């Protein structure tokens, strides 16, 4: 599934993803089980449960990402899976800063712990799924303009709350002005990649959330006061979507040569 995704063959990737999701259901990966992060304290069964749960999260992240990219419904709906995040996933931000290109961890004491390492942030993936469900699903298309705008505001608040939980070194910037160095060019590759992926994912989700406000339109004539009032009401969202698009291009223009090789798709 991951290989097909990175080759740009999304249709094949989603086919493998559906097989992986069904397998995870059989293995019980969609249920949360508390496990110890200390290697010495974990038996074989506990390590197996932990691995299956981690595979669930990887599939979940790819599923929500594909859903938002392609506009198709997700396979792992929050109604049927336990989305309790891994107990210690935030600790990845502590070791990422020191992880070198060979993925060796310093200090060596961290080798005694089973810290989950994901391609992205699980909470951000949850917000992607929520945004798709509330703004772009079949039910969302039937919502009134007032309900849609309310959901946009709520999603924006949740996205900002998530952004504040990310440690400062990795936190996506709200807006990126020209000629601002965001990630030091000499940072190790794993640290650079996480920073770049978080930034572009955050701005992409920001665009998706606020772009939905353009569906709101007054039935009144264009030059009427009512139409003008509607335009004023949705203008902040339109501006935020545009600024997120600008930030994406400015950021990638500076950071693109620093990404890992062969991540074209």
């Amino acid at each position, binding site marked *: 599934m991951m290989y097909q995704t990175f080759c*740009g063959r999304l249709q094949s990737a989603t086919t493998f993803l559906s097989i992986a999701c069904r397998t995870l259901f059989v293995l019980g990966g969609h249920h949360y089980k508390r496990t110890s992060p200390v290697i010495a304290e974990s038996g074989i069964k506990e390590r197996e449960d932990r691995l299956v749960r981690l595979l669930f999260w990887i599939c979940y992240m790819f599923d929500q990402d594909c859903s938002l*990219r392609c506009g198709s419904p997700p396979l792992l709906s929050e109604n049927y899976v336990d989305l309790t995040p891994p107990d210690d996933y935030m600790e990845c931000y502590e070791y990422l800063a020191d992880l070198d290109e060979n993925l060796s961890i310093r200090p060596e004491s961290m080798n005694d712990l089973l810290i989950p390492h994901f391609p992205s942030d699980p909470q951000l993936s949850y917000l992607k799924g929520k945004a798709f469900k509330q703004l772009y699903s079949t039910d969302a298309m039937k919502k009134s303009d007032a309900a849609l705008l309310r959901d946009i505001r709520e999603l924006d608040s949740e996205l900002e709350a998530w952004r504040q939980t990310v440690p400062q070194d990795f936190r996506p910037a709200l807006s990126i002005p020209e000629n601002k160095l965001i990630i030091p060019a000499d940072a190790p590759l794993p640290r650079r990649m996480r920073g770049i992926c978080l930034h*572009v994912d955050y*701005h*992409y989700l920001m*665009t998706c959330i606020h*772009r939905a406000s*353009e569906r709101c339109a007054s039935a009144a004539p264009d030059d009427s006061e009512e139409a003008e009032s509607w335009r004023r009401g949705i203008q902040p969202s*339109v501006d935020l*979507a*545009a600024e*997120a*698009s*600008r930030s*994406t*291009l*400015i950021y*990638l*223009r500076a950071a*693109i*040569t620093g*990404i*890992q*090789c*062969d*991540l*074209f*798709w």
Partner: protein
Amino acid sequence: MSLYPVAAVMGLFINIIKRPLDPQAKLDVRLLATAADITRNIPTQRLTSSEIEHMKQVDDFVAELTRLGEAAISKATLEANGA
């Protein structure tokens, strides 16, 4: 990675068309034009035929959106001055 510049280009283009007289619109058109460079600069050991094809499509797409954006700004400016 190639998704992000293309998605950003779409968002910016829609903003330019909706508000061509905004002072930011001319800056956004210049920014649009850099999107094709971003795709071309994605590090890769060896380009596959689908990647080369995609780069060409992005080049043509961005060039067309830039042309349309500049035309929209020119037209709106002429109409505003004429009025």
